[in-house]
């Protein structure tokens, strides 16, 4: 039964198959790394942002409950000033060289947020200045 010729033929066939398999495995692994990389780019930022968001809500919850009720008005005006940090997004829109709709929108938003930042912090300072303990 051991015909040397057919044996050699099968061996070479098997070797060919093995080579083919290795090649496909390599392709697959390449696809896999690519997929994980893509996955990392599509999935992680949102999850990361959500993590930051949820933790910040908790921080806000505990910090704000400790604010004394007497200072609830300054709390409102300072949070109002602070939420104008949205100006960060406005600056980027107003920054490019060429004039565009986005740039105008950016300019308007920068102006509005600036009113709030200056107004909010100054009015808060004015209020806090008044909370003095008289001797």
């Amino acid at each position, binding site marked *: 039964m051991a015909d040397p010729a057919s044996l050699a033929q099968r061996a070479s066939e098997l070797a060919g198959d093995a080579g083919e398999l290795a090649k496909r495995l390599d392709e697959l692994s390449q696809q896999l790394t690519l997929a994980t990389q893509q996955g990392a780019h599509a999935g992680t930022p*949102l999850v990361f942002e959500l993590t930051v968001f949820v933790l910040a809500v908790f*921080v806000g919850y505990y910090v704000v409950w400790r604010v004394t009720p007497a200072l609830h008005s300054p709390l409102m005006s300072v949070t109002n000033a602070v939420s104008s940090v949205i100006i960060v997004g406005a600056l980027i829109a*107003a920054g490019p060289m060429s004039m565009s709709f986005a740039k105008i929108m950016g300019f308007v938003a920068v102006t509005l947020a600036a009113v709030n930042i200056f*107004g909010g912090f100054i*009015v808060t300072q004015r209020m806090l200045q008044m909370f003095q303990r008289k001797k």
Partner: protein
Amino acid sequence: MSDNFSALLYLVASVCFIMALRGLSSPDTARSGNIFGIAGMAIAILTTLVTPQIVSFWLILTGLVIGGAIGSYIAREIQMTALPQLVAAFHSLVGLAAVCVASAAFAAPEDYGIGIRGAINGSSLVEMAIGLTIGAITFTGSLVAFAKLQGLVSGRPLVFPGQHLVNAGLGILLILLIVLFVMTEASGLFALLVLVSLAFGFLLILPIGGADMPVVISMLNSYSGWAACGIGFTLSNSLLIITGALVGSSGAILSYIMCKGMNRSIINVILGGFGTESGAAPAGPGGGDRLVKSGSAEDAAFILKNAGSVIIVPGYGMAVAQAQHALREMADMLKKEGVQVRYAIHPVAGRMPGHMNVLLAEANVSYDEVFELDAINHDFASTDVAFVIGANDITNPAAKTDHSSPIYGMPILDVERAKTVLFVKRSMASGYAGVENELFYRDNTMMLFGDAKKMCEEIIKALE
């Protein structure tokens, strides 16, 4: 500057903002807290200005100078009694700024690295739509609140038939529009989303009456935070997300505290129309012809001077009459006579959280003479005179006894336990809740009819 380094600086700014809120836990640390806030904002702006995308500065500087000048001017000139409407106006600006930034991000997504025009990342699109919607609602909602507080429109709740149906319809339409917009990314839908959100914000606040404004302002404060948060998600900016979340939760907590102060649910407040369903004030037991003891400033001065202890209960009427300075002067004279004078503040007195505290502080009242409801309520029983100035519903004992009253269950200041109650009021009219206050007819109550400021000045004259 590398992305990593600016992210680090944004983190520093976020921590500064947390410190700013943390400082408010006591009046002693609050001022340094505000400095932290200013520092955080400066770091955030400067860090952004040095990013490579920003190459043209003249428009930015123009905006900062114009906005800064307007903001500084208003903040310096505003009267403390006008604080609630100022805060409402400021909230509207945050809302409008959020709408502008969302529009810019939609028109030029490549500047923000969130895709290209017509092919913006799916998640960024969702976040953009949400930020935009909340921003637009905050804008018109705050404008309505401002108009009500400023007296441009009636402070009474404005209700029309089918209002809740219209609002519910608009709410559903908004959700549909957001879904359609995210699927198609059409500019027409973007514009429509803005318009419907603006209308929704307008109609949402319209039915809510003046005395519910503490809740409304807190709620809009919260919205302005969530709007910043939505924009933060769109631009993948941690600083915006953190700050938005801080502000959002702060406003939410304040709304909760204000609702608790009235024993009403937030839903009940938002649905609006409070104080109108009863129409004319329901005549309390006994009707309108019961005897009311009214006195003059001289009578009041005599009672106050001979009292051992006085607790002053201020309300919105004091703010309207700008009576805080005259009131403090009166209190000073009493203290010279050896009378113990303290102030009791109800959580929802006035038109915004902490409104009364600020006005008393403005009039140089030492903050350790000012007490919250829980801290002082037990002391009324051992107090000679409760001096109620411009407040009504927050002292009404019906909140404890009358199950059918709209204010039933609301925590009140127990002024009726004091030996004598002096009510400074312009007339016998019922308060915001439209409920008559049976305290006016009690034997130990004396009504002092007149403008709060004039009354205090007359009492001062009589004390001299």
